[in-house]
């Protein structure tokens, strides 16, 4: 008989600059925070799922972490799926718990992505999700790959740069209420529009920052103080390289979300709050529209109208998202997950949404390449 997987506890570090901290330092701090939150000791952890770190590119990060942190689980490994890694780790942990392979799975990420390497090194490492012969040598970067997708999306659906900019403003407004966010200084639409060009149509404030940070959750067969369960998960993998995208209106997000809704036995309309990957403003707009939380071409206008604000119809990324909470790699999307857990548990303080009952979390890795969706539920 299948067991219900619960999110039992979570830890989320401040994102930004953690001078002198290593990947293992940040993973350890996040792991300790999650264990403390879950009311568990090291010996209670029988499963560990890690991701990767660009500043600690090791073949066996999970084993390195377990030895360092002092864990001897009966199950452990790492997985890599770009920005979708943290949600894939969590979905896997839920399956391990449901299948009885482990009782308490620690899902942990951390990276000194900002202070552990030069900016050029970070840009070049990330650009390698492109094709090594046919894309990377052209001087492509992650912003450039996403810009190609964004430019086509704007062309096909009549979107303006100001429409995209709405999401930068909204994420910054949300981050202002979270003390752990990397970027908290309020910005206006004009600031986004006037920020320096990176890869058109994307400007600096359309792009998430590179951060140090860490995040961890415990997926368990028993709930924490509040009962938050992982009700369903889905994935989709339809391409890796931008050059290989077949249909710009079908990147995999809709398929992934549909699988998660189906697994959870809910519909999109049942969702009360969401946390969706926002590496760039365009990423968020495209994902919202492909998944169906906004009509095609309407996401920016809906943001402008307050639809995705804390008291809007679909509160979104209340912690500030990657665009303002920050992006430390695998921990980036896990910040979305932790925020959703806190919202479901009604522990989000000044960011708390009115109805935390059913939530949707989504991330993509590569360039809209790998998609992972989760449905989370507050059980009363």
């Amino acid at each position, binding site marked *: 008989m299948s067991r219900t997987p619960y999110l039992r506890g979570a830890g989320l570090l401040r994102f930004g600059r953690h001078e002198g901290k290593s990947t293992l330092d940040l993973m350890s701090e996040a792991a300790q925070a999650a264990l403390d939150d879950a009311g568990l000791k090291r010996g209670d952890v029988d499963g560990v799922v890690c991701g990767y770190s660009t500043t600690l590119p090791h073949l066996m990060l999970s084993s390195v972490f377990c030895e360092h942190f002092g864990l001897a689980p009966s199950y452990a490994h790492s997985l890599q799926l770009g920005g979708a890694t943290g949600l894939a780790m969590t979905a896997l942990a839920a399956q391990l718990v449901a299948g009885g392979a482990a009782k308490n799975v620690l899902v942990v990420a951390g990276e000194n992505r900002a202070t552990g390497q030069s900016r*050029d090194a970070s840009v070049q490492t990330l650009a390698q999700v492109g094709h090594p012969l046919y894309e990377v040598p052209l001087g492509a970067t992650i912003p450039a790959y996403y*810009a*190609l997708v964004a430019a086509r999306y704007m*062309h096909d659906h009549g979107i303006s740069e100001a429409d995209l900019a709405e999401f930068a403003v909204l994420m910054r407004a949300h981050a202002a209420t979270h003390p752990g966010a990397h970027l908290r200084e309020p910005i206006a639409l004009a600031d986004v529009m006037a920020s320096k060009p990176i890869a058109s149509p994307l400007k600096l404030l359309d792009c998430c920052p590179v951060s140090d940070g860490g995040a961890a959750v415990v997926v368990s067969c028993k709930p924490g103080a509040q009962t938050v369960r992982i009700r369903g998960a889905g994935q989709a993998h339809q391409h890796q390289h931008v050059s290989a995208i077949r249909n710009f209106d079908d990147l995999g997000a809709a398929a992934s979300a549909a699988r998660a809704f189906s697994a959870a036995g809910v519909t999109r309309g049942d969702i009360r709050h969401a946390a969706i990957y926002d590496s760039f403003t365009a990423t968020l707009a495209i994902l919202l529209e492909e998944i169906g939380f906004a009509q095609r071409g309407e996401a920016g206008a809906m943001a402008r109208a307050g639809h995705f604000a804390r008291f809007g119809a679909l509160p979104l990324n209340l912690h500030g998202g990657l665009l303002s909470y920050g992006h430390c790699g695998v921990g980036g999307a896990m910040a979305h997950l932790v925020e959703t857990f806190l919202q479901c548990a009604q522990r989000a303080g000044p960011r708390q949404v009115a109805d935390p009952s059913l939530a949707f979390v989504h991330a993509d890795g590569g360039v809209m390449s790998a998609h992972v969706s989760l449905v989370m539920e507050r059980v009363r």
Partner: protein
Amino acid sequence: MIADWTQGAQRLAYDACAACGAHWSLPRPFCPQCGSDKIERREASGLGTVASATEVTRAPSKELQAYAPYTLLLVDLDEGCRVMAHGEKGLAIGARVKAGFRDFGGAMTPVFGAV
């Protein structure tokens, strides 16, 4: 196999499957659609249509920053497959283009211009 720009030749190439007729640009020794190994590498005409375009201001390295800003394109070749390449500044989505070649960071690079 026909050498293309990644080997220093002033040429774009693509794969064609003799079994099912599929065309694709990122080379491999089998057809990703039907699995056949009856694959022919063909020279492309260099004619196509702009599928998307971005002007890159922030290059990935100091060496390439000297070339910035440069325009990256996705081009739908007339042969029915898509490639990434450089382009003349200001090309719009839907524009008809033809490939030329130039040096970029010490390597042969396709650069499309308006037809």
